[in-house]
């Protein structure tokens, strides 16, 4: 800010300098340079995010044959459909339970890795990140084979212990469990790496002080680690919640929403209705329904972070 004020003063003292020099000074401002450097990304976001978002808003206001404006008619229709509410419920179950488990597993594993001697940590970090770096469409295909209804490798292994066969994708409860499991497997490394970075930034002196005060392991976690990681936990949770709510590939490949629609989430249901059912306006409306849910979550989480920032 000081930089901008300084530049403005300089311009004010030299009124004889024409337009060219004011452009010259504008270009020398840090904020202008920053804007220009961010411009390609802003344009890319506008093209790939803002335009499709506005277009889907437009689509959601059309009738099935896309010839008539019907306002909120598609939403009115959806609110009367039982299947839609089933999808809302399942999306919440899927996203919330997956994020909780991802956060929990990420937190625990981050602690383990943090305690591994420094020279071996890189290897562990690399190995634990593998699920996250493999494209999920590809890794989910491998899971599909593991869960295959007739030739499941898991069931084959379990049969040696007299267990099963388990209908991994054929029974509603097991199918929900399977899609959440794969999502947790894929997403936990992201939490792990974020938490590991946060753990490394906690000053050792705080632990030393806690140890002098006689704090046990649990008290150190509760009163030192967690408060220091609070912001990163909130941001990671929000980010993951958004990504998990919008998940498509895992459910689509593993169960395609079945059995009996019991694993459909917003994106898979939108695809079923919009593309497979040739009802694009309704599909757009289903996918847009995520926006208010995620907006409310984002407002709460970001407000909390900003409040703590101000307190600090």
């Amino acid at each position, binding site marked *: 800010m000081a930089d901008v004020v300084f530049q403005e003063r300089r311009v004010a003292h030299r009124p004889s300098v024409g337009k060219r020099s004011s452009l010259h000074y504008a270009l020398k401002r840090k904020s202008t340079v920053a804007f220009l450097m961010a411009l390609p990304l802003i344009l890319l976001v506008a093209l790939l995010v803002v335009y499709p978002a506005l277009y889907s808003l437009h689509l959601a206001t059309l*009738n*099935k*044959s896309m*010839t008539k404006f019907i306002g909120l008619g598609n939403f009115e*229709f959806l609110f*009367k*459909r*039982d*299947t839609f509410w089933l999808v809302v419920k399942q999306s919440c179950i899927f996203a919330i339970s997956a994020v909780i488990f991802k956060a929990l597993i990420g937190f625990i594993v981050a602690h383990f890795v943090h305690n591994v001697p420094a020279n071996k940590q890189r290897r562990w970090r690399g190995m634990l990140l593998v699920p996250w770096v493999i494209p999920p469409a590809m890794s989910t295909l491998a899971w599909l084979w593991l869960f295959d*209804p*007739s*030739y499941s490798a898991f069931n084959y292994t379990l049969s040696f212990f007299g267990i099963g*066969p388990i*209908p*991994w*994708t*054929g*029974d509603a409860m097991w*199918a929900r469990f399977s899609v959440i499991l794969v999502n947790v497997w894929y997403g936990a490394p992201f939490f792990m790496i974020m938490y590991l970075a946060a753990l490394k930034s906690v000053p050792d002196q705080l632990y030393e002080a806690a140890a002098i005060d006689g704090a046990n392991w649990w008290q150190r976690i509760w009163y030192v680690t967690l408060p220091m990681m609070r912001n990163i936990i909130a941001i990671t949770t929000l980010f993951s919640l958004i990504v998990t709510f919008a998940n498509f590939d895992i459910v689509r490949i593993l*169960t*395609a*929403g*079945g*059995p*009996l*629609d019991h694993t459909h989430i917003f994106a898979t249901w939108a*695809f*079923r209705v*919009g*593309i*497979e*059912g*040739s*009802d*694009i306006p*309704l599909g757009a409306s289903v996918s847009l329904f995520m926006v208010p849910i995620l907006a409310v979550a984002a407002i709460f989480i970001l407000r909390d972070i900003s409040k703590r920032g101000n307190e600090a």
Partner: protein
Amino acid sequence: MSRKKLSRREFVAATALSSAALITAPYIRGAHAAGKLAIGFWDHWVPGANKTSTALVNEWAEKEKVEVQIDYITSQGNKTLLTMAAEAQARSGHDILAQATWQAHAYAELLEPVNDIMEPIIKQNGAVNDTVNYLGQAKGKWLGVPACIGSQIKGPCSRIDLMKKHANIDVQAMYPAGSPPKADNWTLDTFLKAAEACHKAGHPFGIGLGETSDSVDAAGAIFNSFGAELVDAKGNLTVKTDAVRQALEYYKKLIAFLPPDAAAWDDASNNKWLVSGRGALIMNPPSAWAVAKRDAPQVAEQCWTHGFAAGPKGRFAPYLPFFWLTWSFSKNKAAAKSLLTHLSQPSSIEKLVAASGGYDLPAYEKLTTLKTWAEEGPPKGTLYHYPNPYNHQKLSIAASPAPPKVAQQIYTQATLTKMALRYSQGEKMESTLAWAEGECEGFMRS
């Protein structure tokens, strides 16, 4: 450097002269004088089948002086549907696009009617079956040309040995190669008894109960066999009828003899079931047999494709036709229609059927006895009855005869298999019917 300025008068005179020269110049027919044509064909499962369609297109393009570009679009991951949806939004894309079943009606308002070519084609090749009429026409207009490539009947493909041993049924005697079927006793009751016997013997029939097309098509044939319609041709709800109840009762009995994981099956599951040697019967076009021929020849030589069992309202076979569609905004409709006429010639169809190993089915009644189906094997004649040469069964699609846009929703949402599954899992009949009625009400939206 001197620079001469062009006056307005000089510019107008030069433009007029060059326009006149262009108009009066003699027409020279160049290599691609008839323009360009972009084609989106369905990417065939059968290795090498695409080569034949490319050759047929090139043969036509050379004669007609058209520059062609062919894209083979896979139906894996619904890429064909996505292409169609994107092109409809963009009002731009391929001049010819191959699509299965419902897409002609779904995009009817954006398609070029093809009555002018369909009438002579039908005159030449014979009438098309009722399902092609139902899916390919709207208000008297042909929305597309029935495509040989990809069209298929999903009738039973049985294991000769297992059916004989466990169900005491000789499928070869019932559907002898080269002669009419002797299948009067091949009814849904016989089918159920056979399913039970094979289940007891550890070789259950491989019929899926999932939400993909193989499961839905099989359910459609059984529902049609009972005359069970969820929505009638006029668009009235007919869920709560005795016919639907009978179909559900039958399905409940059948499900008890199907593999326990059938609810999770997709379109690959039944193929694997047959090829692995675990199943005595599946409902599929001959692609499963073709894979078995390559990967498990001992299974393939015991496979026999034949007609479906008859129910109280007749004998129905699941049928899934493809269409070649042309957009109304296509830039070269004349060339597109000319090519579609070429691809619908008996000589072209014969080549396409041969290239697909008998998988592809022409929709026309005069073309169901091509030599490919008689000669394919092992065992020789295994595909003889695949194209329904004696019109022994009615080729049907699930959810018909509901108005196609409603039927598409019933089909896509797999309402029939979901009903069967719900009822078989212990839900009360009336609850299942009420659920289905609610769903169908929603499908009526326009």
